[in-house]
Structure formats: structure tokens, C-alpha cells
């Protein structure tokens, strides 16, 4: 896993957000398109792609995409 690939997988859960907006520093919960369904999709994507189970609280406690990446990397 690397951050570039993770950001691509993360961005794939969105439909209407400009790809340029996704960087390690992106505060993803502030994106207009962010919703509870996006959160569920991110959790499912992480399970699918990395075989890591993250929880709703991991999302709540992560501010940036990099924060979430770090949570997952610790469990790899």
C-alpha cells in the first residue's frame, strides 16, 4: 500500500468531486459530497483492498486522508 494508490481508491468512492481535490492533506469530511454512505463505502473499500477492518470511529477520528491512511497502515 502506498498513499498515492490509497488516494485513488479513496477518490473512487466519490462521483462528483474533482480528483484534484484529493491529496494527503484533504480534510475529507469537509467535502460537499461526503455522506454516511461514502463513509460506509470507504470502510468496505478498505476491507476489500487491504483486508483491514476499520470502524466508524476511525473515520470520525481522522481529519485528513493521510490520517486514515496511517490508521490502516498500522493494521497491515
Amino acid at each position, binding site marked *: 500500500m502506498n498513499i498515492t494508490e490509497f488516494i485513488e481508491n479513496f477518490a473512487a468512492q466519490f462521483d462528483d468531486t474533482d480528483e484534484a481535490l484529493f491529496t494527503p492533506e484533504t480534510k475529507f469530511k469537509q467535502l460537499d459530497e461526503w455522506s454516511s454512505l461514502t463513509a*460506509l463505502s470507504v470502510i468496505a473499500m478498505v476491507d476489500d483492498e487491504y483486508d483491514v477492518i476499520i470502524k466508524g470511529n476511525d473515520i470520525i477520528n481522522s481529519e485528513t486522508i493521510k490520517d486514515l491512511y496511517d490508521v490502516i497502515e498500522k493494521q497491515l
Partner: protein
Amino acid sequence: MEKTFNPFSLEGKTILVTGASSGIGRETAIECGAMGANVVITGRNAERLNEVYDLLPAASANVQLVADLTLAGDVEGLVAQMPQLDGVVMCAGNSTTLPLQFGTREKFDEMFGVNFFAPMELLRLLYKKKVLKKGASVVLIASIGGTHSFMPGNGVYGASKAALNSVMKYAAREFASRRVRVNSICPGMVDTPLIHRGTITEEQLAEDAKRYPLGRYGQPEDIAHGAIYLLSDASSWLTGHDLVIDGGFSI
């Protein structure tokens, strides 16, 4: 002493409760016992099942049988040991919160295995082997999900419960020849260990509970009381019904 008139009594009835070691099943078993039934409880976890067994009235002819209903051998073994039943409440089940685009065949199989194929096979054998007495009552714990409510992320779970609701109606028609009644309960969100697994945060659950007109999630006893009605002679003319108990959520 003169007996009190109570059409909801389960006195003298023998009732099987699946998934009895936790959540709705546990509460249903305890309340059936309190209503006078002899209770047969089954679940996967022997220790937790025994805890529930100890809470049943000692005077009744209760039985505990450890079984995993997703295993064919366990189901057959369970049916072979089963006393004649006046009723069964199928509570064993599981849930998942997963957007449909992640709902692979594997995920569907897993959910249908626990929520649909397991109770269906148990029901089939209980009926075929005539373990269910004439006039017995079958209660399937389904969900508002899949038939009355379609919340994003609940598709895999809801579809399995919709399938259960569907066979409930067929069974109601077919089993009526033996006067066996078959109904389901469709609960909204009930506060059990199943919903506290972390995919949805506690804060989100608290927020969601506010969307229920009656102001809260259900408690296991809210569902157990519905099951008692469906098991009792009070519902003698009711079959093929899906009883929604959801605090008004699906209105």
C-alpha cells in the same frame, strides 16, 4: 386458586427459541419462560446459552442444545433431539452494513446462509418430521429492512430478510393444512450487541434513534412481547402476517 384469564399465556406450551444466547433471542426465551412455557433454547455459544438457561423458571421442562444452524449436521442433530413443539421463534441471525457495490456473491452467501437458509432448513425439517404439533405457531424474526425500509448500506442484509418474509407467507399457506400458523416480526433497530459493532458509531446510532417517531430504538423485550402474542392462543386466527414493531419508523 382460580386461574386468571390470560389469552396470552404460554402455560403448558413447549417453545423452541433459536439464537437464544444473545439479544432478541435471549429476551424471548426468558419471557416465554416467564409466560409459563417449557423453553428449548439453542445457540452457538455454550457458556452464554447456559447463562440464559439458568434464568428460566426451574419448574419448567427446559432444554438447552448447542448448535450452529448454518451447519447441516447440527440442524439435523437438533431436530432429532427436539421434543414436540407448540411453537418456535427463529431469532438466530446476523447483519452487515455494506453498500451494494461491495456486495459480492460471497457477502450475499454469508448473509443468506445465516438469515435465510439456516432458519428455512430448520423450519422445513421441523415441519417435515412432524416435530411441530398440529396448531403450532412459527415466528420468524425478519426486519423492516428489505420489505418496509430500504436504507442505504442495508441491501445485503435486507434482501436476506425479505427472502425470509417471502417464505413465511408460502409456509403460512402450505402449513395451514396442519393448522400450523407462520408469521414474522419485522423489527426496526433494536438495541442488541448486533448493532454495536463499530461500523456505525455510537454517535450515529444515537442520532438515528431520534428519527424514530416514538423517540428511541427498540429494546429486545419490545420484540419478545410481539413473539409472545404470535405464539399464544390470542393470535389463533392470524397467519401469514408480518408484524412491524419499529417505533413508527416505517410509517
